[in-house]
């Protein structure tokens, strides 16, 4: 069955034209970070070329998300204070969001869509913090990107997607199941393929690919489980939507693997709720609406 969906997915990717590519800026940023001779100044220079990106990163850096004691005024300070990898991941999140900013609100409101993705990113980051994970921004960006597969539906098969959403709503069935029925794969697999195409780290692409089928995650099961849980939390808190009207079920083995106490959920949610609004404001600033 997996190989079937693979061919269907490949066919889908083939038939529907160009796959969007990552912004050049991000690619250059990534290369520079990996260059043995790059300095902090070099990183700051590249980011500074994009004013929108710069503004957003500085706003994020100064937000309660980080709770830094002093004001961060420059990108280079942001780099030293927040960290190089961290800044890269933030830039990725902002860049990808920017890629889709021209999408219309049909058949799904972009505001609502991104709200869900931001909620998921925030939830993933908060959970990761509670679990003392090393790279928090990695989880943040995975959350932001986890449903972009649905954006591809909206871009390439808007009518069919609208029909799928209608069927899901009227017949009280999960949109995910309908995706599998009609397409032979789900938006996770689609997004995963996209991220791999963009040569993003497997630590991001695998959790995104399997955030609805946890048991398939082979290299990063823990990160995948965490992202899956973050998605469920975001749905449960009804912060935006990506077309699904019900909360997807939480995979029991994902929960078991995380070995998180249920008592942890309340403080996590208490942290998410106040930060959600300001984060959405920062990230969605300048987005055009229909």
């Amino acid at each position, binding site marked *: 069955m997996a190989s079937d969906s693979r061919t269907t997915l490949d066919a889908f990717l083939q038939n529907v034209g160009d796959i969007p590519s990552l912004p050049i800026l991000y690619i250059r940023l990534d290369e520079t970070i990996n260059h043995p001779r790059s300095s*902090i100044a070099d990183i700051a220079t590249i980011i500074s070329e994009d004013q929108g990106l710069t503004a957003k990163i500085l706003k994020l850096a100064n937000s309660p998300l980080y709770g830094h004691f002093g004001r961060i005024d420059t990108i280079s300070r942001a780099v030293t204070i927040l960290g190089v990898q961290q800044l890269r991941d933030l830039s990725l999140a902002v860049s990808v969001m920017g890629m889709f900013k021209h999408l219309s609100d049909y058949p799904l409101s972009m505001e609502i869509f991104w709200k869900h993705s931001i909620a998921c990113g925030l939830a993933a980051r908060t959970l990761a913090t509670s679990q003392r994970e090393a790279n928090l921004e990695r989880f943040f960006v995975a959350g932001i990107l986890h449903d972009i597969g649905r954006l591809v539906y909206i871009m390439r098969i808007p009518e069919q997607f609208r029909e799928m959403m209608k069927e899901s709503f009227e017949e009280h069935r999960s949109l995910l199941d309908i995706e599998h029925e009609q397409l032979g794969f789900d938006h996770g697999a689609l997004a995963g393929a996209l991220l791999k195409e963009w040569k993003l780290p497997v630590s991001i692409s695998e959790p995104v690919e399997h955030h609805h089928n946890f048991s398939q995650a082979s290299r990063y099961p823990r990160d995948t489980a965490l992202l899956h849980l973050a998605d469920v939390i975001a749905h449960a808190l009804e912060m935006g939507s990506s077309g699904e009207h019900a909360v997807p079920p939480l995979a029991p083995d994902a929960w078991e693997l995380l070995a998180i106490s249920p008592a942890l959920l309340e403080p996590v949610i208490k942290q998410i709720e106040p930060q959600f609004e300001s984060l959405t404001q920062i990230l969605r600033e300048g987005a055009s609406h229909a």
Partner: protein
Amino acid sequence: MPESPPEPSYQDLLERNRFLEETNFHNSTILDVLSDCSNFQSILAQRDGIRKIMKATVCQISRVIPFTAMALYSIAEDASFVLDYCEPADQADRLQTEIDAKIQEGAFAWALNQNHPVPSPSSAEDTTLVLHALTTQSSIRGMFAGILPLTTTEIGVASLKTLSMILTYTTYTLENASLYDQLHDHMDNLEERVQERTKELEAARIKAESATRAKSDFLATMSHEIRTPMNGIIGMAELLGGTELSPEQQEFLRNITLSADNLLIIINDILDFSKIEAGRMELDLHPFNLGELLETSLIPLKIAANAKGISLSWQIEAECPAHLIGDSGKIRQILINLAGNAVKFTAKGTVSISITCQQRADGLLIFLLKVADTGIGIAPDICSHIFDPFSQADSSTTRSYGGTGLGLAICRRLVQLMGGDIAVESSIGQGSVFSATLPLTLTVQEYAPRTHQPADLSEQKPTVSLSILLVEDEIINQKVAVGILQKIGHRVTVAANGKEALEIWRQGSFDLIFMDIQMPEFDGFETTRRIRQQEQQHQLLPIPVIAMTAYAADGDRQLCFDSGMNGFVSKPVRLGELTEAIHNTMAHRKALASSRVAADSV
């Protein structure tokens, strides 16, 4: 695949080449560094391992990053930061100053909560202080601080990444070290606790042993303490019986005697049982004659049976050897118990005792003792419990027939002690058959049975009135013994302890000594030993010494003979036993004296 530019210029290619070379060099250096870091674990095992690791860490870092000073701090128990290692050592103060400033700012606390390097301008121009928290997934262990001769933004991204990698390695290794330390502590503790426990167990063992000893001492003392007044009661009752009494008084006396006898049986049962339970019962193996044993044990019972109107008979299979080695006292006890029960629980009919024997492959003889009666019988389901202590067929049995319920339990223990077993077959109204197997061995020499008549010597007058020295410390026992001996017709002098006894014996001339064993200061054995010593010195004919023992310990018998005694009677002393003992001892002495005379005259 990213599209390559259509026509790379020469410069482009050169640049690309340089990039690849640099990247390659950088990557190999990092691999080298990481490979060296992977040896940190083995450094742990060495002496001063932690310090060595810190030194190695700083060394690896300096291969790729040009720090002018580096220091490692760890968090102490009071949450303050302690300098663990600094290179060069003279930079320690400078680093401390920089850190203090960052703490003030809040930058130190911030850096502590990240797990990436946090560079910030230091106080000196064109230098940067780099802070990096030392954390593992489970805890924050400390902080790294280093000074770079660069401005903050000049710092290479790759160096920061490498610094992170090395410090992560180091921190996990140090965490391992502290885990090992904890493990060692635990093991040391464990050893300590094992030692403590061993001491505790040793103390408990000593306590238990002394408790056991106390128990044994108690048994011995109790035996003596109980039998002494019993001796008084029974002895006095006997003496009373020899005086003028009205029929009514005689009837009362009979009841007293009966009660006293019963009480003695019960006391003996209890003391025996306690002794067995304390594991203090030992076998006293000696030669004896089987036929004689049966006779002496069963004749009194026969009299009782006849009085009841039932017949009691016994038979030894012809093939059974008569001369054996075993504990005749215990066999007697078993016989009397089983046969006594049979008589007790039979209203009419017969009680028959039989002994057969079989030879076992290893040369041991197994004797089968069977006691069969035509009495009231025992229900089959009770048969299996009848040998348990404190059980009788039912409580009404106790009321009608008396007893402690210990007799059969003691029998079983004694039989088992001798290496055999006991069983019963019975049903209500059909009588019972008790069988006991006893392994015994043959004796090499024949044991000449005593040919005397048992009991009834109270009827006879002694042929001669002897001068007897009675050595006894208890007043009541003195009175009893004196009373009986005088009744027989002997003259008695009393010594109240061993010392007195020696003096009186030396000065007087006695025919016989009755010696109590349990006495303060010199006990009976010691007194006898001294007498024998002095007799040897002065070449005197040894005086017969008869022990009066409460049978507290089986070893007594051997001890009696070892100390030079000639015989013994058991307490409480009775007329019959005393008479018999005197008779035997004097007869033996007569024989001894005449053979001596014969020898001297040769």
